[in-house]
């Protein structure tokens, strides 16, 4: 594997050097397939470092990362430490928001056995299915992903033949054939919601990329590995009716002197009232994510 990688690196250099002479034929040997193979080799390398979903770790491991770094970060982690007990890391493969959301949500259902919530999300998932159909998506392109998520949802409910333990949930979240399918389910749901309410999302998308809503969904929502932004979070939260709290950990500091950690609650819009998103006991977020520029992990309140 390593030899192969070294070869490909050489190959890339050669082809880069041959640009001025316009000797394109050499490129045949180093086609896009090779580049994609190299990419998956890099991904495999990355996979060894962080699992799709890691183990629960005490917050001290987060502090340890910044020990010789920014003092603002160290101060902020102290603030977090007052309210949060643990962190669960996810792999930085561009799917970390969806993967964190998946694990947090299923873990909440497994631990709370909140039947009402399960019924509610099932109803919303059916709406998402109809949305995609009405947008012209062929059913067979997304149904497998929907089915797999609904199966996992069924499995975390206890007292049935299909019930799974918390350990099994962790294992499944690390199993690519399940984990990636659920990430893709969320990507379909997110894309459908953005396109269904394209007028609402358009200005936010223009601010991010200056493309059309449809193009944004095709290039930045549906493909695996495309990173999520507040647009994705808003859309997913609205579509499934699930609140998400995001804590922002970065080097920004406020003028007043004291250090605080900003958070934002994504509260789904309620029914037909677009501005009815008020924090009430029923939609208090049970998913808390930690955002550091470019990455999301899962947080556990005390």
């Amino acid at each position, binding site marked *: 594997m390593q030899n192969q990688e070294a070869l490909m690196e050489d190959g890339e250099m050669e082809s880069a050097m041959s640009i001025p002479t*316009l000797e*394109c*034929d050499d*490129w*045949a040997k180093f*086609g*896009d*397939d090779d580049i*994609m193979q190299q990419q998956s080799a890099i991904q495999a390398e990355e996979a060894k470092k962080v699992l799709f979903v890691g183990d629960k770790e005490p917050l001290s491991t987060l502090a340890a990362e910044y020990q010789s770094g920014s003092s603002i970060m160290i101060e902020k982690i102290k603030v977090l430490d007052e309210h949060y007990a643990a962190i669960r890391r996810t792999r930085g493969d561009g799917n970390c928001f969806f993967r964190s959301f998946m694990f947090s949500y299923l873990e909440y259902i497994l631990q709370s056995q909140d039947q009402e919530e399960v019924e509610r999300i099932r109803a919303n998932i059916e709406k998402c299915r109809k949305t995609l159909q009405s947008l012209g*998506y*062929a059913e*067979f*392109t*997304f149904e*497998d*992903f929907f089915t797999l998520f609904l199966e996992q949802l069924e499995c975390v409910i206890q007292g049935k033949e299909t019930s799974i333990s918390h350990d099994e949930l962790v294992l499944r979240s690390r199993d690519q*054939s399940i984990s*990636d*399918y659920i990430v*893709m389910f969320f*990507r*379909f749901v997110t*894309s459908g919601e953005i396109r269904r309410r394209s007028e609402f999302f358009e200005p936010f998308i223009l601010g991010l990329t200056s493309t059309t809503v449809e193009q944004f969904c*095709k*290039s930045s929502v*549906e*493909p*695996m*590995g495309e990173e999520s932004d507040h647009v994705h979070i808003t859309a997913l939260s609205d579509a499934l009716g699930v609140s998400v709290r995001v804590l922002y950990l970065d080097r920004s500091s406020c003028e007043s002197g004291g250090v605080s950690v900003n958070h934002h609650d994504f509260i789904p819009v309620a029914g037909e009232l677009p501005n009815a998103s008020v924090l009430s006991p029923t939609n208090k977020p049970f998913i808390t994510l930690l955002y550091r520029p470019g990455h999301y992990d899962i947080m556990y309140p005390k």
Partner: protein
Amino acid sequence: MQASRARLFKEYKEVQREKAVDPDIQLSCDDSNIFKWTALIKGPSETPFEGGVFQLAFSVPEQYPLQPPQVRFLTKIFHPNVHFKTGEICLDILKNAWSPAWTLQSVCRAIIALMAHPEPDSPLNCDSGNLLRSGDVRGYQSMARMYTKLAAMPKKG
């Protein structure tokens, strides 16, 4: 593996049902291997490829549809985004912009669109790309038309 097989079987049924809808695309699966497909696509009208029929070879990976199919032109074609020797295609949806929302059929449609709208700034065929980038549309069209005649049209008589 099982998931990709199931998905491809659904696509196969869809292709049979929709045969009449898209007369420009004839997609068929290898009799003994559902991971190998070929397509015959018609060159789009008002392009140098008009009148030609081009054969594509699909090789579908086991991780399909999370990963894209590999597609190549088997018929020789003079186009900035197709490698002249290998038939490799430079198209974002076959690379990092792939998503399971695409199907083998819609990939064929995207390739037909690429034939009509070449992207000379990311060429796999530099000679072809350079003609377009230097503004020699006539030169590009006559080369492309010549190869269409030589390689993509049935021989008369």
